[in-house]
């Protein structure tokens, strides 16, 4: 009897939730598929059809609920905000790109009606440069990190799976790059090539490779001893198939989590490089602006403050999201 009263409850819930909302359906489809990519939820078998439906709904929601902590939502909204800003920069900004890169009167002028956040050394509008700056950060960070991700994963999987001398060679090279101070390596790379955006991307892409390969190598080494890999061997699968079809999907999760963190990290490093003057000076970039304002800290604090806040917010967004994602996906915390 107790049993019946309990099973009535989910029915009510499912009915109330089943409103025909297209956007919601699309969203739930995405969440559903992300879930299968990332977490095997703990659904139990041998239920009636109704119970099963309920289970499916609730485990879908389980992932969302994990993700739904205040901090994570904050992170997602920040990312959304920054991306919108970058995509629609011309609509948000009062001034055009050319204007913001030009030279105007009004050196270090304080905030005024035309320039709500003040002006820079060359009289450029700080607000406009803040908005356009999001473009530079995202366009450098994303390709760079994809570059390191792809190559890092390939090297890491190969090293972890084969062991022996391929591992020794790959990992020794990775160790060298890891031990090399990253910031100086980036500075040297950028100085060797030109200070142009594509080279900065490439430099960062190369520097990121060892982190991912180390990360994935560890999980591949663990996974390659597991019976399902042995089973794949028994089923006659080739090494490449085992590496990239059997093992990789099971090892990619920590990389995905780290990926969200690292977007933030790269934006931060980029700003640092620009601050030291190793960046394209023509670029509208927050780090450049801070570097410019460095000498005028006491008389024009607005010059340094606003771009810094933008960096802080952007990086924080990615890190909050990464943190939330990690908590939602962490297998150790899954059953709590």
């Amino acid at each position, binding site marked *: 009897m107790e049993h019946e009263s309990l099973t009535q409850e989910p029915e009510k819930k499912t009915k109330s939730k089943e409103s025909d909302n297209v956007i919601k359906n699309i969203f739930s489809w995405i969440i559903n598929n992300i879930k299968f990519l990332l977490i095997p939820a703990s659904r139990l078998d041998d239920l009636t059809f109704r119970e099963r439906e309920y289970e499916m709904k609730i485990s879908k929601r389980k992932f969302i609920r994990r993700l739904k902590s205040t901090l994570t939502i904050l992170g997602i909204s920040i990312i959304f905000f920054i991306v919108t800003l970058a995509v629609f920069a011309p609509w948000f900004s009062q001034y055009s790109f050319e204007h913001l890169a030009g030279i105007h009167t009004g050196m270090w002028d304080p905030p005024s009606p035309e320039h709500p956040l003040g002006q820079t050394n060359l009289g450029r509008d700080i607000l406009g440069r803040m908005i356009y700056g999001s473009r530079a950060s995202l366009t450098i960070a994303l390709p760079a990190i994809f570059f390191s991700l792809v190559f890092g994963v390939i090297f890491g999987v190969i090293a972890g799976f084969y062991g022996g001398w391929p591992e020794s060679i790959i990992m*020794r090279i990775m160790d060298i790059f890891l*031990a090399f101070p990253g910031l100086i390596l980036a500075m040297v790379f950028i*100085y060797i090539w030109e200070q142009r955006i594509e080279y900065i991307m490439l430099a960062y892409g190369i520097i990121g490779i060892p982190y991912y390969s180390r990360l994935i190598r560890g999980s591949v080494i663990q996974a390659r001893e597991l019976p399902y890999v042995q089973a794949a061997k028994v089923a006659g699968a080739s090494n490449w198939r085992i590496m990239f079809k059997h093992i990789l999907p099971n090892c990619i999760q920590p990389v995905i989590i780290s990926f969200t963190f690292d977007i933030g990290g790269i934006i931060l490093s980029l700003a640092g490089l620009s601050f030291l003057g190793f960046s394209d000076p023509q670029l509208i970039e927050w780090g450049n602006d801070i570097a410019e304002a460095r000498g005028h800290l006491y008389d024009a604090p607005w010059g340094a403050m606003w771009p810094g806040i933008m960096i802080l917010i952007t990086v*924080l967004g990615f890190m909050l999201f990464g943190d939330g994602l990690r908590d939602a996906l*962490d297998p150790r915390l899954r059953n709590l």
Partner: protein
Amino acid sequence: MSLIKYIARRFIALLPVLFGVVTLTFFLSRLMPGDPVLAFLGDRWTTEQYNYQLHRLGLDKPIIEQYVIYLGDLFTGQWGISVSINRGQPVWDLVLERFTRTFDIAILAIIISSIVGIKTGIISATNRNKPKDTIFRGMALIGVAIPVFWMGMILRYIFSYLIPIFPGLNYKNPGIGDPPIITHFRVIDSILSGQIYLIIDYLYHLILPVFCLSFITLAGVVRQTRSSMLEVLEQDYVRTARAKGCKEEDVINIHARKNAMIPTVTVIGMSFGYLLGGAILTETTFNLNGVGALVMIAIRNTDYWVLNAVVFCITLTFVMVNLGADLIYGLIDPRIRY
């Protein structure tokens, strides 16, 4: 005995890495555009002077020969002269002077962030998903999301301009002298020469930079401590401890903390690399005149010798800190056999 053997083995394992870094820097630095001889000679020079300096710096030899000579010099301590800074100052002196300062900040920052981070992480884990936890994690994340150099500037603006209680620039009061150079470490030298006020002055100047810098590793330490603590608290032996009748604080302090420290130590060691990068930025903000400024001048003037020496020192420090972390790891975890 086995410990010494272990250290020796680890050290030998490090040699290829160090060698690789040295090689990489050497060839990368040769790829840099620019001419060190021109940097040395300045604006006015004759071909004879040029050729003479080229020969003197050893740049007229084939690159492989230069490399071999360079390796030899590296191990005999003849690190050459700087072509860009002070025109011909020995690199060894230069590096010692600047590097020790960076080293001081980095070590102080890592100690502070470890202590604070571990404490916060444990509190966070034991109050999982409670407001305390959220606040601590949020704070740590903000700390890591702030660009260090910008944070430094804001701190300078607030604490040395609006409310002038801390010095904003430099590592010492201009009116204060230096202790006699013995070890190049300012703190040690001051103690050796008995000038305690120098230490106070020095540390007083380092408060803001170290504060900034320790935030870089803090979030990582907090996160790692929290998650490994949560994991350890789920373990069977913690259940055993509870079944024995241990108090909750004893469960955490005696049974769980040491186990939770094991992965944290590794994270601290690894994040030291970030910290050294951050130190370059921080000292630029605070005009500490450390290794950061040196590197930038070296790169801009293609000063091979300085660049190579700095990279070598930083790598060596990084590698040694990691070796230390490994040793601590072994001390904590008896399952690691030396």
